[in-house]
C-alpha cells in the first residue's frame, strides 16, 4: 500500500481525481495519461545534461555574440512587417528583463512589481508628449530618470526588508501604480488610455516605420547589454554579487549593502523607464491594461527561464517568451497555463535556468 502511494500511478490518479469535478471524465483520463508519462520520464529529464554556452566575460566580443548581432541586423530585409513587430516587442521585453536581472539576478532582491516602472516610463513619455508637446529624444532621459527616481523612492524604505517581504511590497507598489493610473481620470484619462503619442523623429524624419523603429530598439538593446556587462564586472557588480551571495558577510567586508541595493534598484528601473518610453512611442497609445501584475510575472519569468544573473540568459528568456506564443498561435489559451507549469518544473529540475550560472543562490 505504502509503495503504491509513492508510485507515479498514485500521483497521476490523484491529479485526475482532483481535476474531475471541473471538467468531464474524458479530459480527466487524458490528464491521467499525461501526468503518468511526465512523472515516469522525470528521472531521465533530471539527468539530462544541457551544455552550457561559454560566453567571454569581456562583453560583446566572441563568435556567438557577433553572429547573433549580424543575424538580427539583417533580419528586417528578410521578414514581413508582422514578424518585425514581434521582434520589436522582443527588444522591449529584453530591455525589461535586463533591467530586472540587475535587481533579481545580480543583487538577489526579488521584485514583483517591475511593470510599475515600465508603466511610469511609458506614461511619463505619453504625458510629456501629449500635454507639453515634448519630443521623443528629450523625453527619453526624463522618463528613464523618472522611473529610476521612483525606483529609489520605493527602494529607500522597502530595501530595509528581506526577501519575501520585499517581494510583497514591490507587488503592492505595482498594484498601487496601476490602480492610480486607472482611477486618476483627469490626469491619465483612466482606463481609456492616452492615444496620439508621437513616434521619434530625427531631423524631421519619422522613425515610426517598423524597419527604422526595429533598428532603434536594436541599438538600445545592444547599448544596454554593453553598459550592463561593464557594470557587472566592475566594483559595483562585485558588490552586488557579494550581497546576493550573503548579505551579512558582504556587510562585514565593508560593503555598504543598503547603498549598493539602492544602486541596483535605480539602475534596473532606469532600463524599465527606457523600455516604457520605447513601448509608448511604438504603440502611440498607453493604457493601464498593459502594466498588470501578470506583466511583472512575465518579465520575472524571462529572467528566471534564461538563467538568474546571466545577461544573455535574460535576453534568451525574453526571446523564448515573446516568440513562443507567436509560434503557438493555436495554443494561445494555454499560454499562461504552460508558463505557470514551466516555472514549477524549472525550479525543481533546473533552478539555474537554461544557460544560467551553476550557482543559483539568489535570495539566500
Amino acid at each position: 500500500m505504502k509503495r503504491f502511494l509513492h508510485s507515479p500511478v498514485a500521483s497521476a490518479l490523484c491529479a485526475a481525481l482532483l481535476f474531475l469535478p471541473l471538467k468531464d471524465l474524458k479530459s480527466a483520463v487524458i490528464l491521467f495519461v499525461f501526468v503518468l508519462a511526465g512523472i515516469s520520464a522525470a528521472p531521465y529529464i533530471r539527468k539530462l545534461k544541457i551544455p552550457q554556452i561559454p560566453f567571454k566575460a569581456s562583453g560583446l566580443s566572441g563568435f556567438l555574440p557577433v553572429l547573433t548581432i549580424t543575424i538580427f541586423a539583417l533580419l528586417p530585409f528578410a521578414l514581413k512587417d508582422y514578424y518585425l513587430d514581434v521582434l520589436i516587442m522582443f527588444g522591449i521585453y529584453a530591455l525589461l528583463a535586463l533591467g530586472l536581472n540587475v535587481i533579481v539576478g545580480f543583487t538577489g532582491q526579488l521584485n514583483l512589481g517591475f511593470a510599475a516602472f515600465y508603466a511610469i516610463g511609458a506614461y511619463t513619455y505619453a504625458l510629456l508628449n501629449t500635454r507639453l508637446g515634448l519630443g521623443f529624444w528629450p523625453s527619453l532621459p526624463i522618463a528613464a530618470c523618472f522611473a529610476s527616481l521612483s525606483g529609489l523612492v520605493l527602494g529607500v524604505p522597502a530595501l530595509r526588508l528581506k526577501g519575501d517581504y520585499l517581494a510583497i511590497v514591490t507587488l503592492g507598489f505595482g498594484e498601487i501604480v496601476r490602480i492610480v493610473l486607472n482611477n486618476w481620470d483627469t490626469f491619465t484619462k483612466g482606463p481609456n488610455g492616452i492615444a496620439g503619442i508621437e513616434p521619434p523623429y530625427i531631423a524631421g524624419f519619422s522613425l515610426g516605420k517598423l524597419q527604422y523603429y526595429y533598428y532603434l530598439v536594436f541599438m538600445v538593446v545592444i547599448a544596454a547589454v554593453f553598459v550592463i556587462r561593464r557594470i557587472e564586472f566592475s566594483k559595483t557588480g562585485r558588490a552586488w554579487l557579494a550581497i546576493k551571495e550573503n548579505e551579512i558577510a558582504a556587510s562585514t567586508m565593508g560593503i555598504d549593502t543598503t547603498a549598493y541595493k539602492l544602486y541596483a534598484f535605480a539602475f534596473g528601473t532606469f532600463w524599465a523607464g527606457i523600455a516604457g518610453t520605447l513601448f509608448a512611442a511604438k504603440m502611440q497609445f498607453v493604457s493601464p491594461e498593459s502594466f498588470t501584475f501578470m506583466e511583472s510575472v512575465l518579465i520575472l519569468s524571462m529572467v528566471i527561464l534564461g538563467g538568474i544573473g546571466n545577461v544573455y540568459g535574460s535576453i534568451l528568456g525574453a526571446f523564448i517568451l515573446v516568440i513562443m506564443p507567436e509560434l503557438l498561435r493555436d495554443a494561445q489559451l494555454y499560454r499562461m497555463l504552460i508558463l505557470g507549469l514551466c516555472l514549477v518544473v524549472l525550479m525543481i529540475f533546473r533552478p539555474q535556468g537554461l544557460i544560467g550560472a551553476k550557482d543559483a543562490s539568489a535570495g539566500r
Partner: protein
Amino acid sequence: MLLQQLINGLTVGCVYAVIALGYTMVYGILEFINFAHGEIYMLGAYFGIIFLALFTSSGLAASNFPLAFALTVLLTILFCSAYGFTIEKIAYRPLRKAPRLSPLISAIGISIFLQNYVMITQGATDKVFPQKFGDASFNFLGASATSLQLIIIFASGLMMLGLHLFIRKTRTGKAMRATAQDMTMASLVGINVDRIISVTFIIGAGLAAAAGVMVAAYYGLVNYSIGYVAGIKAFTAAVLGGIGNIPGAMLGGVVLGLIESLGSAYVSAEYKDVYAFIILLIILLIKPSGLLGTSVEEKV
C-alpha cells in the same frame, strides 16, 4: 450608517482572517509565502458552485437547503484540502532545501497554473452562485445584518476557535508549534516533520475553501481571478497581525475588513483595493513584526 459599515466590514474581515490563517501557519513553519493560497480560496468558490449545482439537480437543495449547503461546504473543504496537500507535495517539498527564491517562484507558477486551469475548464465569464438564503435580515439600532452575514461571522468565529483549540490542546497541535519553533529540534524529538507540514497545508487549504464558499454565497459572483486580490489582502491581514502568529492573523483580518469598509464609505470607493496595499506598506515600514508579532533576529 456607521454601524452598518461596521457589520459589512466585520463580515469581509472575518473572511480575510480565515484565509490569513493559512498564510500565517505556513509561514510560521516554512518561512515562505504560499503564493498559491489565494487560488485555493478561488477553487473553493468554484467547487461550492459545482457541488451545489450537483445537489440542486439531484433535488436535495430544493427539499432541504441547509443540509445541501452544509454538504457542499464539507465536500469543498475535502477537495481543496486534497489540492493543498498535493500542491505542497509536488511543488514545495522538493524545494525545501533550495534557496528561498525557488519555492516562492514555484508558488507563483502554481498560482498562474491554477488560475488558467480554472479559466480554461470553467470559462472566463463570471459564474453565478444560486441565492437561496432569502432576504431575511435582522435589525438592530437602525442597521441590518442579513442571515448570510450572520452565518459568515458565526462560522468564521467557530473555525478560528476550533483552530485555536486544535493548536493549543491536541498532540498534533503541540507538534505543529514545536515544528514552527525549530524544525530540526522537532525532528530530533521524534516529530514527523513532513507529516506536520502536510497537516498544516491541509488545514490551511480547508479554511480557505470554507472562506471561498462563503464569499461566493455572499457576493453571488465568482471569477477565476478572485484568488489573487483576496490572497494579497489576506496576506496583508497576516502581516498586519504579525506573520506566523495565529491570533494576530484573526485580528489583522478583522481590522483590515473594517478599514476597507470604512474607507470605501467615507473616503473613496474607487480606491478600495489600494487601502490594503497602503496599510501593508506602512506596517512593513513602521513595525514589520505586526500588531501581535515579536521581531526575530536573523540567524547567521
